[in-house]
């Protein structure tokens, strides 16, 4: 395909080509429409700028709805960011001061052994207590039997 060099084009010859009637008006109307649409979507630099009024190509109701939605969304984002910063700050501020909640062991094996020893001690002491209770209970039953025997003899 033969390529044309732009320098080789004769501007005067191009100017002689007839332009369709009303093309210029239609093109400028289209450009205005695109401009209005881009202003509605663009984020305004200040909270009250960017409102579209009917005289600059936008519909007031639609623009207000978009602006109101954007405002609430911005407030939500601001609140979320604030909570996020506070949350992270609180988390890190509380964590290092509260040494009592930091795991003593990094190795789960050692932690397991310590927990096992603690539970073993608890079980041993519970069993000791139960053994003492059983011993006392046995003595009490023995005393009761002797008493019953004596009472039967007396009767």
């Amino acid at each position: 395909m033969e390529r044309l060099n732009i320098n080789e084009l004769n501007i005067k010859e191009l100017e002689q080509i007839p332009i369709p009637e009303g093309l210029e008006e239609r093109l400028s109307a289209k450009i205005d429409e695109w401009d209005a649409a881009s202003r509605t979507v663009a984020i305004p630099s200040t909270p009250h700028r960017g409102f579209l009024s009917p005289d600059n190509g936008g519909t007031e109701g639609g623009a207000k709805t978009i602006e109101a939605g954007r405002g609430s969304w911005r407030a939500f984002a601001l609140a979320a960011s604030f909570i996020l910063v506070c949350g992270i700050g609180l988390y890190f501020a509380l964590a290092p001061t509260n040494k009592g909640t930091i795991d003593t062991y990094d190795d789960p094996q050692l932690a397991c052994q310590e927990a096992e020893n603690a539970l073993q001690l608890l079980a041993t002491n519970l069993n000791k207590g139960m053994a003492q209770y059983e011993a006392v209970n046995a003595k009490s039953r023995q005393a009761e039997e002797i008493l019953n025997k004596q009472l039967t003899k007396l009767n």
Partner: protein
Amino acid sequence: MRKIFSRTLICTLIMLLSSLTANAQVEEFEKYSDMKNVTYVYISKAMLTLAKGLTAPSVPGMDMKNAFGKLNAIQIITTESKAARAKLKAEVADVVKRDKYEMLMQVDEDDSKVRIYFKDGKKQSVILMSTDESNETSVIAFSGTFKIEDIQKMTEK
């Protein structure tokens, strides 16, 4: 975009809540972690879960898997210092009185006195075992979601 923000917000709230409710142990004993001449051991639920997965712990007469699953934290405080022992004993007495612990058992022997207390909380139960020996005092607090029946099982040989 909106979804990302919503997720971030939810995650932050969860993180905040978890940091506030992370105190699954007896808070009064936390101060002993910084005290001189006191040995403080803390084992969290996360570590217990890891330990449960790694090994098969065994204590005669105890269902360890069940016990580990119900534990949220273990705190072990041991001291030989006179001042710290007195403070620790007073602290235990205070906690027992204030939080209305029930005495489960008292084992008095020649060289040691053991007290086992139990608090059946709605969210968390605690078994508090204090051992007072001639030269040492130790307190072990088991926090978790166990019931009195679980303790009863510990005594079954």
